[in-house]
């Protein structure tokens, strides 16, 4: 407990943009075959430092096979909400779940160069207290830390639907299930909210048997992955509306609400449209009578390719699908970054008018049947995937692995983990930085990135921009 609010907590998104820039990034190190222990890499992102662009510390956990994926902070700017009374928490711990093991590590990063494990929550505790498995997205909210899960109970995670559980934000004790009325929600992936407007939005990937052993082509072609987004009364813990994006819109993943809590809209990325292999972004919003709406506002076409250049999974289609697997919105709600992991492209859209996004920047690196090198001449395996934007919006970082078994299906000949960074022009435009290229240690891939002091997919702000 501090006597003053943590200096990295900001009342508004605007103030967060003006705060000092990040010096360190924390990035997942994942051993895809479980032969080594997973970990968190601490990356020096201060261009004035001698060790710029290097991994300067690693927290390697004692177990193997956890499969790290997404992770988040124990506290963020949401602590400044006077409704919750947690203003004096420290942004100090990373909550790192293993999506394969369901084990959760609490890592103390107060001194990033001496980051260490603070507490481990064993899978049995998660199962017993929540009935869920395979923890995924982390956000700090009204009653503590909210954790979404991808699986229900039982060995294959299909005994009951997955959902969200709450953890105490100081002791990290698991409190229990969030939902009181989940409505028709039976799959889960991401979630985020607007705290003052008291709504939450959640999305769907698929159930564990649909992803753990690799993508199940028959399920995809018969539209059995998730294609709905759910709107919740946050504090009543009740699903108030479900929007079906259409069953051809397979895998509705990242939910990115506008950061300014005065706005009642946001975005959701869809991996693939099974009718035409397009990737898509939906804009969702609340209309004047309080009903939620969603409309497809971005489509990205597949690229035709000869079957012989494609992995077996795609040969029948003779095309490379964009595979929109991550999106991220800058803190000024102006630029939406869209990772096209299949094509090997990072797109930047101006979404000042959220109903009419405009493509203003693009980087090509990696990609199926293309494998474009980084501008520094080094290879970039797979394609651009987990993307994170600096608070000031000037730097965009990304890594290249999607998910262990899926990487191997879409890129059977690739290996390696990279983290790169692109600089953003004042009015858009995106260019890879030649000097920032992190090659991960042998046998490791990389996934989500968190920036010291918060980033664009962490903090929830409680006060409108002025």
């Amino acid at each position, binding site marked *: 407990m501090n006597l003053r609010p943590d200096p990295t907590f*900001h009342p508004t998104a605007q103030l967060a943009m003006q705060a000092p820039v990040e010096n360190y990034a924390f990035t997942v190190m994942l051993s895809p075959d479980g032969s080594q222990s997973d970990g968190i890499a601490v990356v020096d992102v201060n261009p004035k430092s001698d060790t710029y662009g290097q991994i300067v510390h690693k927290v390697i956990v004692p177990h193997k096979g956890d499969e790290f994926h997404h992770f988040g902070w124990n506290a963020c700017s949401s602590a400044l909400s006077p409704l919750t009374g947690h203003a004096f928490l420290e942004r100090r711990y990373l909550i790192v779940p293993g999506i394969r093991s369901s084990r959760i590590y609490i890592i103390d990063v107060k001194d990033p160069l001496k980051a260490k494990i603070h507490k481990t929550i064993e899978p049995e505790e998660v199962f017993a207290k929540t009935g869920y498995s395979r923890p995924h997205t982390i956000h700090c909210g009204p009653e503590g830390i909210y954790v979404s899960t991808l699986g229900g109970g039982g060995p294959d995670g299909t005994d009951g639907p997955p959902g969200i559980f709450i953890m105490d934000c100081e002791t990290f004790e698991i409190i229990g299930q969030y939902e009181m009325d989940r409505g028709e929600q039976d799959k889960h992936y991401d979630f985020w909210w607007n705290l003052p407007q008291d709504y939450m939005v959640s999305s769907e990937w698929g159930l564990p048997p649909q992803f753990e052993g690799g993508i199940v082509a028959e399920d995809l072609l018969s539209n059995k992955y998730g294609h709905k987004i759910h709107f919740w009364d946050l504090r009543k813990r009740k699903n108030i509306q479900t929007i079906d994006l259409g069953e051809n819109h397979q895998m509705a993943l990242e939910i990115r609400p506008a950061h300014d809590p005065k706005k009642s809209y946001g975005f959701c990325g869809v991996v693939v449209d099974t009718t035409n292999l397009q990737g898509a972004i939906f804009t969702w919003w609340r209309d004047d009578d309080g009903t939620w709406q969603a409309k497809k506002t971005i489509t990205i076409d597949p690229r035709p390719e000869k079957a012989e250049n494609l992995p077996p999974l795609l040969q029948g289609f003779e095309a490379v699908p964009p595979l929109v697997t991550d999106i991220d919105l800058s803190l000024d709600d102006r630029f939406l970054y869209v990772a096209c992991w299949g094509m090997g492209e990072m797109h930047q859209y101006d979404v000042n008018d959220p109903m009419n996004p405009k493509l203003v920047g693009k980087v090509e690196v990696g990609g199926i049947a293309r494998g474009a090198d980084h501008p520094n001449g080094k290879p970039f395996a797979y394609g651009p995937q987990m993307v994170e934007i600096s608070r000031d919006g000037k730097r965009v970082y990304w890594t290249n692995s999607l998910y262990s078994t899926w990487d191997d299906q879409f890129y059977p000949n690739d290996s390696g983990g990279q983290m790169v960074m692109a600089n953003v022009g004042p009015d858009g435009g995106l260019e890879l930085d030649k000097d920032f290229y992190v090659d991960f240690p042998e046998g490791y891939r990389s996934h989500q990135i968190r920036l010291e002091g918060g980033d664009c997919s962490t903090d929830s702000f409680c006060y409108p921009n002025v």
Partner: protein
Amino acid sequence: MAALWGAVIFSGFYHGVNPGMGWPLAVSAALFEQKAAALGKALAALALGHFIAMTAILLPFSMMLTLAEFQREIRIGAGLLVIGLGIYLLLNRRHPRFLARVKPTQLGLWSFLAAMAHGAGLMLVPIYLGICAVDELDAGHAAAGELMTANIGTAFVVALTHTAAMTLAGGVLAVGMYAWLGMKFLSKSWFNLDVVWALSLILVGALGIWHAG
């Protein structure tokens, strides 16, 4: 006597400046609706909740005061209760989770619950009992019925004065931030008052017992 009323007003200011009693919510309301009137409306809701919490605590004590022969015991008991809550808050520094379940639109309810959970009303009890004791000396040997009416009246006046002072202090901060200082001031001006608050309860309780004895 003036000191006791001064304490009522001072405690009001003290509660008012504490962000935990809600003034940032008034700023937030004004920013959301983009008009200053929303700030006033939110302050009024917060004040109403606080006022009800104060009277809910003070009224039972005003009833008890009709048991004139137990005056001293009541005052000592109340003092101990307040000290007890202070010690509890000192040892248990967790915030009540149920407050987070209140909807952001229910500011009055939130303010009532926040005041209750932090013992804002209890903090007033020893001061209130002190005022009643002085009143009684002045009144001489009035009938029990009259005394009770007077005590209830005093409870309302104490709660009202305290709430007015609280609203004024919180209002000045809220308007200042909304109109001039900007949101940066919010995180800069927010101090952790948990320990000070718990110690205040212990202090007020101790003073109450001391005066009763």
